């Protein structure tokens, strides 16, 4: 099953490689990983998407907790949560019909056209990973020139927080 693991980690050189190294050394898979400082600049927030059986996910969270730099950790998928991912995608549009189609798709998925050129539209799209997947899946004949996804970030619903 897919799990979103949120981590508060000391904002120190090498902290990211400890997490990445743990995953490669123990053969766990990472679907996406994002990291940036929090409002407290001494801490970073990392969000990791991984897949595995319950037993593997339990090991992943335990092994992560063991890393000395990790301050707090939560498996977002255990409770109600919000997840968002951002995508920037450059699509080839060579005629009026394709431009119209892309514009319509972008509207349907609540995306924004950020940039246009003679041959391309660049769209910004935000949502759950599955929504972004659905957008790509519906493009039909429209050619993707370039695609970049931010990886997932997540936060719990309600008053529950993951902080110090």
């Amino acid at each position, binding site marked *: 099953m897919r799990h979103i693991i949120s981590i508060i980690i000391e904002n120190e050189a*090498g902290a990211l490689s*400890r997490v990445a190294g743990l995953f490669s050394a123990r053969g766990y898979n990472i679907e996406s990983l994002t990291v940036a400082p929090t409002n407290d600049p001494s801490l970073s927030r990392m969000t990791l998407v991984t897949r595995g059986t319950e037993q593997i996910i339990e090991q992943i969270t335990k092994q992560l907790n063991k890393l000395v730099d990790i*301050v707090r950790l939560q498996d977002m998928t255990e409770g109600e949560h919000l997840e968002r991912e951002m995508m920037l995608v450059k699509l080839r549009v060579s005629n009026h019909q394709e431009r119209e189609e892309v514009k319509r798709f972008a509207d349907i998925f609540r995306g924004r056209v950020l940039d246009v050129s003679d041959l391309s539209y660049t769209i910004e799209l935000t949502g759950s990973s599955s929504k972004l997947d659905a957008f790509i899946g519906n493009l039909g004949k429209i050619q993707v020139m370039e695609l970049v996804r931010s990886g997932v970030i997540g936060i719990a619903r309600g008053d529950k927080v993951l902080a110090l």
Partner: protein
Amino acid sequence: MEITGAEIFVRCLEDEGVDCLFGYPGGAVLHIYDALYQQDKVRHILVRHEQAATHAADGYARATGKPGVVLVTSGPGATNAVTGIATAHLDSIPLVVFTGQVPTSLIGNDAFQEVDSVGITRPCVKHNFLVKDINELASTIKKAFYVATTGRPGPVVVDIPKDVTAQRAEYHYPAEVSMRSYNPVVKGHIGQIRRAVKLMSQARRPMLYTGGGVVLDNASEELTELTRLLDFPITQTLMGLGAYPATDRQFIGMLGMHGTYEANLGMHNCDVLIAIGARFDDRVTGNVEKFCPTAKIIHVDIDPASISKNVEVDIPIVGSVSTVLKDMIKLVSDSSFSTDKEALVEWWKQIEEWRAMDCLKYDRNSDLIKPQMVVEKLYEVTNGDAFVTSDVGQHQMWAAQYYKFDKPRRWINSGGLGTMGFGMPAAMGVQLAFPDATVACITGEGSIQMNIQELSTLKQYGLPIKVVTLNNGYLGMVRQWQEFFYDKRYAMSYMESLPDFVKLAESYGHAGIRVDKPADIEAALREAVAIRDRVVFLDFITDKEENVYPMIPAGAGQNEMILV
């Protein structure tokens, strides 16, 4: 007053109570060596190879319970230390390893003797640090000792660039340290402990299975008390030997791949398994699908990640072994607690039947020296009271099977990583910590050659260890597997061109004794124990094709042992 980073380093070690520092100098640590030269509180032991420095510090740590401390230079100094760091990591031994680093301005420039020490050691340390700011040197060293010795212990590397050791700062060693990201749990959950004790009271075929965690947490007394109160059979892992007295009736031998018949069958047939400070290693469990098929499992461990990693357990208890055992003793001593005495009588009867198989028997009348007999004689000659280190292979298993350890911290071997070349430098560290004790290194002619240069260090510091070489001319464990599983194709397992170990020892100024007749074993060992001023290198020419039994082949269950 401001002092240099090198002086701060030395002051930190003094304040930390470090009496022995194992190391080897080099460019990046010259300032530190200069500061060491000008003091006499921290004793520096000059090894002949950095790997030996880490193993010696490791042996010191295992024997004393204090952290072992190492200082090596950058680049090759650090990479040579890696095997010893990984060895300590797999066995959870507290080490603090200081590696010199090129000056901060050169880091990343492929400078002379530069490697990314923090990167290279990351997967085989508990934690590591790179100190770039002189003002953080003392507090980082404090943290390193704290992390290495608390929770599940392990090695910590501190990488110190050369310029940091030259800069000046005020010295202040923090009395305490707190890290928001590191708070190991010590106290076990009392509800879980109650559930565990209830399960023990209902057990009809219980089994205690204990490991290195008991030794590391100095919980021998508590373990012994609880085991006696319960009257349950107890088996120990390779790393746990000595925590419970091996000569006691309730001890039924080591378990696992080369464990006793009674221990492995006891495991296989038990209905309640109480695992304490053990980690269900593959050499213990055999095939996990066939592991303890009828047992409810209680697992006490300080490391949550060890619990349900290889084998799903029923009652997990996270906490320090000694604390949890104390809580258990309290509950078990209560008048309301009782065990199923009738069932226990039956269970012990069954175990005694298995024990009567005498699975460790061997041919005592052979004209050739049987390696098992050497270990047994060593046990007799040293009254079972020696510190015994070992290398890795057949001799290691025979040492574990035939030297009956009654005390913890007496059996010192590389269980997890299986590092050949560990034994002699480890013995060096033990002898330094206990100058008057008898320290024996049981080894083979293969392993001993992996760090044989340390004969020189042993000479320099007058450390009279006994090297007990079981010389069969083979990498014995490799040969044994090739005999069993590769149709006797002995690929590269024959040790040719061996030196004359007696002459080699003598060339260093040590004593050497070759023994090739069983009748001479005891006299040679007595002579060796009597020599107190230099190493005695005993070269026992043993039966070439003796095997270690019992043996659980890879992939088999604990009830599928090969016996003699």
